[in-house]
């Protein structure tokens, strides 16, 4: 696709549907074909020291084709919508299908009668915003960050980014869906220095459109996080209550959700396997995945197989109620899809997963300072590191590096760093002691809320 076609993705996705229709129309008797066609336009601007460091503008497009024949699945993708390339990709997917193990549960999604909700995640104004305005916003953010506090010695990076994506999904089994979304963000990463040492902080502002992006939010967040860590020392070991910042709570929910994937459960890779109907969390924990909630970052009318997204209650009052299924894992489990197929893009196949997790806020309606006051003594966790290397959703082992501040008399006190916090996901769910009502929809698959968990092990001095 040429750069000349930098024009924003158009209104109804008809062009992409036509591409997908042509591929699916090639199916021969007994052959199932699914074509997933995606096209996007992205802008990225990095500001540094009063200047634009880099400006990227690009359009990209691609196709992923699944072929199912006699219970055997083959997949191929290409980063192009050139007809000859698509032809080769289809042939490759067909050839790949020859080698898979036949399996009665391997199948494409079939429309299940659930009507798709209206989920409008397209900001019509974004395609009309010119690059100069985006550059001005990035430079403004960088200038604000540099001037925000005399202790900010460096603005490491300020990034503006936006994207417009449209997709079409068509299959021989009757799926025919299109969707589109816009998103934008500005992020700031700053270094504070008090002469005795440096600390870092990051902040961002996200939205569907340009008008939703607020440089002040990103800058204030970044500066607050860096400055309040100044003077941090290595914390002391001990067993205490941890209060997770909204952003950190989002990350933890994301990890827990991979254990709620029906695919992980059915393959024995989840600590939740075999526990439906049992108490898996404190009774105050109710966890819902509802991608039709338009506030959610990854909100969508359709799942990754073209079925309607729907609200699924996963944990209700501490009791495990439901797993998330795509078509294949549902068949394997003897149930039906929950409309929870997710896919990383045209280059990957769908799997079962969450899109829009939300913990029911605590009945006391606490914001972050309310949670801190309720906890009284403990550790506030501002950021975590090593989630990929220290959190295991199969065994449940949990161990992360932490930066944060001690909580004393219900308020934030001295900053601490170079410590770890450890527990198991199983125990953490049972040890939830407060869930904030300060819901913020953050990038990713879960809302952010301040979350207090008792009895974690801090390792430090």
């Amino acid at each position, binding site marked *: 696709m040429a750069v000349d076609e930098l024009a924003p993705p158009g209104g109804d996705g008809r062009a992409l549907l036509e591409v997908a229709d042509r591929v699916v129309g090639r199916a021969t008797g007994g052959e199932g074909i699914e074509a997933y066609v995606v096209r996007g336009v992205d802008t990225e601007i990095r500001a540094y020291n009063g200047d634009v460091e880099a400006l990227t503008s690009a359009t990209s497009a691609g196709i992923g084709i699944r072929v199912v024949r006699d219970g055997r699945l083959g997949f191929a*993708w290409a980063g192009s919508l050139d007809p000859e390339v698509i032809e080769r990709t289809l042939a490759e997917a067909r050839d790949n299908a020859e080698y898979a193990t036949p399996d009665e549960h391997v199948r494409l999604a079939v429309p299940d009668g659930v009507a798709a909700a209206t989920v409008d995640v397209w900001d019509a104004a974004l395609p009309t915003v010119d690059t100069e305005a985006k550059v001005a916003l990035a430079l403004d953010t960088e200038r604000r960050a540099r001037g925000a506090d005399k202790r900010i010695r460096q603005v490491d990076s300020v990034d503006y980014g936006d994207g417009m994506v449209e997709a079409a999904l068509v299959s021989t089994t009757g799926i025919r869906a299109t969707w589109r979304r816009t998103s934008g963000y500005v992020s700031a990463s700053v270094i504070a220095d008090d002469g005795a040492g440096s600390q870092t902080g990051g902040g961002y502002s996200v939205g569907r459109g340009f008008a939703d992006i607020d440089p002040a939010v990103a800058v204030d967040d970044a500066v607050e996080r860096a400055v309040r860590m100044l003077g941090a020392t290595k914390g002391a070991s001990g067993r205490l209550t941890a209060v997770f910042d909204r952003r950190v709570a989002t990350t933890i929910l994301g990890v827990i959700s991979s254990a709620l994937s029906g695919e992980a459960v059915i393959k024995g*890779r989840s600590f939740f396997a075999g526990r439906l109907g049992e108490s898996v969390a404190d009774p105050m924990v109710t966890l819902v995945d509802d991608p039709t909630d338009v506030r959610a970052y990854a909100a969508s009318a359709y799942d990754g197989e073209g079925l309607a997204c729907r609200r699924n209650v996963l944990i209700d009052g501490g009791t495990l109620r439901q797993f998330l299924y795509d078509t294949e894992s549902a068949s394997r489990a003897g149930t039906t899809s929950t409309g929870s197929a997710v896919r990383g893009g045209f280059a990957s196949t769908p799997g079962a997963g969450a899109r829009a997790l939300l913990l029911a806020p605590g009945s006391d309606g606490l914001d972050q300072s309310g949670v801190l006051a309720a906890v009284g003594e403990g550790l506030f966790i501002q950021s975590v590191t090593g989630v990929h290397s220290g959190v295991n959703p199969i065994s449940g082992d949990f161990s992360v590096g932490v930066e944060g501040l001690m909580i004393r008399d219900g308020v934030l006190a001295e900053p601490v760093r170079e410590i770890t916090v450890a527990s198991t996901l199983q125990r953490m769910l049972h040890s939830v002691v407060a869930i904030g009502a300060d819901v913020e929809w953050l990038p990713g698959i879960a809302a952010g809320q301040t979350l207090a968990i008792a009895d974690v092990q801090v390792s430090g001095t």
Partner: protein
Amino acid sequence: MIDQPVLERVLGEALRHGGTFAEVFAEDRSTSSALLDDGRVEQLSSGHDRGAGIRVVVGETTGFAHTADLSEAGLLAAARAAAAVARSAGGARTVTAPLTPAAGPVDRGTEATGAASKADVLELLKRADDTARSAGGAISQVQAGYGGSRRRILVANSDGVHHRDDQMRTRFSVSCVAVGDSGMQTGFETAARTVGFELFDEISVEDLANEAAVRALTKLAARPAPSGELPVVLAGGSGGILFHEACGHGLEADHIAKDASVYTGKVGQLVASPLVTLVDDGTVGTEWGTAGIDDEGRPSQRNVLIENGVLTDYMWDFLRARADGRASSGNGRRQSYQHLPMVRMTNTFLLPGADDPAEIVAQTPKGVYVAKLGGGQVNTTTGDFVFGTTEAYLIEDGKITEPLRDANLIGNGPEVLRRVDAVADDFAMTPGTCGKDGQSVPVGCGQATLRITGVTIGGTAA
């Protein structure tokens, strides 16, 4: 991929409105993968991607555009889009040096294509599955994966560089779940090299499968890892991620230029134990971070970063090196043609020492022995970093005793480097994937058995 006259016209167009540098990076990548899970070959996948990224540098600003259209018209359009940023800056017109084609890439192996090789891949996956499942009755789940890729790249720039490379990569991994009274535990093992199907002449999938399975089985009896600070012995080839995180990222010149590294301004100073000599080298054999050239057309080279504890140099890409009036160290890498290059590691490793690995353990009264590491993460500004264990044991009275559950270890880069008090001679490399600013690139890490006098262990035991 693209003819020289076309490249010259595209570079000319990119600099038509001014600028000090323009570059065309073209890439053609084909991938194939296969996954055996839950006893079934779930799917074979194939992918193909090709395109070009064009950058134009004007003053301190880089304009970048990429396109999947490698026709002259498509490249010229991308050049104009990348140059748009130059137009507003109004720089003077610059002269483009004539392109000097370099010698072609070296042959790096045989691609796994065609029906025979797909069947061969399935055979390997099944052998791995059989081996893992026969390692013990407690093995409840096995996943085996194969991935192969061929990446052909071309770099041409206004300094006259015109270089190509042909990069072959093959990896094979096995992950196992074991179930016992204490719940589930996991074991993972992978082999990955910059070769084609020849990987399987060099490694045994049975060995990989067995290691992954035994790792999961061993941990069924694991006790919670301790908390607090203890001496740590890292086994040779346990991951090498320690140095990647403790100082590798902090020695990348982009962090240095922004004064966002604890190692800024420390060249010539003692930053580590004299036992530490750290090298980044993109030319080492068929290791995972090896390539003929980096993604800016600079031939890979060996760079000594720390020598006997003294910081000798940082790692550089084209722009950071140019700003400093020196040559790139061959560390300009990018995930794909859709990404801008930045300073990245290749194969980063600690040179071996003279100690005996068994003796190092024997002389450690109490500590943690790490047989295998997972990933890690660092804040280059503060130097604080974590790295995770996937197979670790207690050391008691100089002996390796009970297995420990997985945990992260946390330390501060400069402090940990000073605490290395023994390095053995049993050097080994391991493959990994390094993420930075949203881009992933393959890297190698290496080290011999070594001891750190104190690291904080992130376990749950008080």
